[in-house]
C-alpha cells in the first residue's frame, strides 16, 4: 500500500513523496514506514508515543482519529495513507 508524504516530511524520508509499505493495519504500515525512515519518528510521534497534535493521518480520505478501530483499522492493498501536518505559510 502507498503512504503519501507531503513536502514538510520529505527531508526525513530521502525526499520521497510516496512510500510503498506493507502492513495489515494502519499501525503496522506506520511501523514499516518508521523502520524504513527512522528520522520520521520524531516528527510524527510525541515522546509518549501518540501522534502529534499537528499531524493527522488519513486512511484514504478519513481521519484515523475517527475510525472505530483507529490505528488498528485493517488495510487493503488498494488503501492509501496520507500524513498531513499543519502548515502556516501565506505571505
Amino acid at each position, binding site marked *: 500500500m502507498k503512504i503519501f508524504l*507531503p513536502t514538510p516530511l520529505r527531508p526525513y524520508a530521502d525526499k520521497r513523496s510516496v512510500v510503498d509499505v506493507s502492513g495489515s493495519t494502519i499501525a503496522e504500515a506506520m511501523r514499516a514506514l518508521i523502520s524504513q525512515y527512522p528520522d520520521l519518528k520524531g516528527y510524527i510521534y510525541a515522546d509518549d508515543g501518540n501522534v502529534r497534535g*499537528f499531524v493527522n493521518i488519513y486512511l484514504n480520505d478519513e*481521519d484515523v482519529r475517527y475510525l472505530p478501530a483507529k490505528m488498528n483499522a485493517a488495510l487493503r492493498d488498494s488503501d492509501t495513507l496520507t500524513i498531513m501536518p499543519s502548515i502556516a505559510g501565506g*505571505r
Partner: protein
Amino acid sequence: MTAPTKSAPLSNDEIQRYARHLILPEVGMEGQLKLKAARVLCVGAGGLGSPLAMYLAAAGVGTLGIVDFDVVDASNLHRQIIHFTQDVGRPKLTSAEEKVHGINPNVTVRKFETRLTSANALEIFKDFDVIVDGTDNFPTRYLINDACVLSGKPNVYGSIFRFEGQASIFAAPATEGRQQGPCYRCVYPEPPPPGMVPSCAEGGVLGILPGLVGLIQATETIKLITGLGEPLIGRLLLIDALAMRFREMKLRKNPDCPICGTKRTITKLIDYEQFCGVGATAASQSPSPEKTQTMPNALPEMTVEELKSKLDAKENIFVLDVREPHEYQICNLGDYGAKLIPMGDVQKRQQELDPEQHIVVHCRSGVRSAKVVDFLRQQGFEKVQNLAGGILAWADRIDKTMPKY
C-alpha cells in the same frame, strides 16, 4: 448567508461592470446585491491576500477590510501581485488600497494598520461577515480561528508551503440545513513545536502557489456570500502544484474541541504566542528532528565584523556554511574557504569537522546555523560559534556588492 440589509440598487455603471455576473442566473441581480452588501475581512495583504483582495474587489464585494502592518519588500514581488515594483518600501495597506480602488472604485476599503492580536481581533471582526486568513504563522492562525468561533463568523482558511497548499472553511456557523462546521483546532489541536516546520522565508515558496490557494479562498468567500454551490466546509482541500493533484480529506467536528466542543474550556482569546511557543514564526529544519524541541538560548556568537577582521588577520578559522547548495550558488564566503555542508547532512558528515578547530557556522539569517552550533556543542565541539545574522548581515555590513535573498 448574509442577507443584504440595506441593499442600495446598482447604478448604471455598476450594471455594466457586473454584466457577466448579472446574466449568470445563479448570481444575477440578487447575488450581485449580496456581494455589494458583504463585508469581508482579509487578514494579511501578502501572498494569499493579494489575489484575494484583487478578485473580491473586481467581483464587487462592497466592503473589504485589510489587516496588515508590513512594508512592501523586493522579495515579496514574485508572488504578492497586488504590490508593484514601485511600491517597495511603502506600506502594504496603502499599496493594496490603491490597487483595489484602481480595479473597482465602488469598493469601500477599511484599513487596519496593526498586527492582529487577542486585544483587537474581536473588535475588528465585529464589522465583518466573513474572515479570510491570509497570514503566515501559527499564533495568528489559532487567534483567527478562535476569534471566528467566538464571534460566530466563518474562517476561510488557506495555507501554503513550498509547492503545496491546504484550504478549508473553518468555524462555519450553523444555518438551516447545515450544522456548525469543524474549526481549525478540531483538525489541528496543537501547533508544531517552534523550529519544526520551516517558514516560507526559510523554506521558500513557488510564486504562483499563493495565487492558486488565494483564489480558492476568494471562490469560497463568494460562495458563502451568495449561497452558491457546495462550500468547502468539513473538507480539507490539499493542493500539490508539482503533481498538479487536488485531493480532499474529510474533516469532522471534534466533540472534545476546547473551543467549539460541548465542554469548551476556551471562552475568550488567549495568549497565542505562548500557546505556540516563543519564536514559532521563524523556524527551519534541523539535523535531527528530535533535537529541535528546545531552542538554544545562549549560544556563542560572532559578529560579521569580528569574523571579517579575524579572517583578514589570517586567524585559523574554519567557516562552515550550512545552507543548501542552491543557496550557495546565490552568494557565499567561498573566498574565505567556507565549506558547504547543508544542515540536514551535518550529522552524517560530522567526521569531516575537527572538534579542536575554531569553527564559525553560518546560514542565511542565523536560524539554521544556531541549531547546528547547538548540535555540534552537544557533540563535544567546544570552539564553535554562530555567525550572528548570517550571510545577510555580511551582505549588509561587510560586502555591499553581495546579493541578498
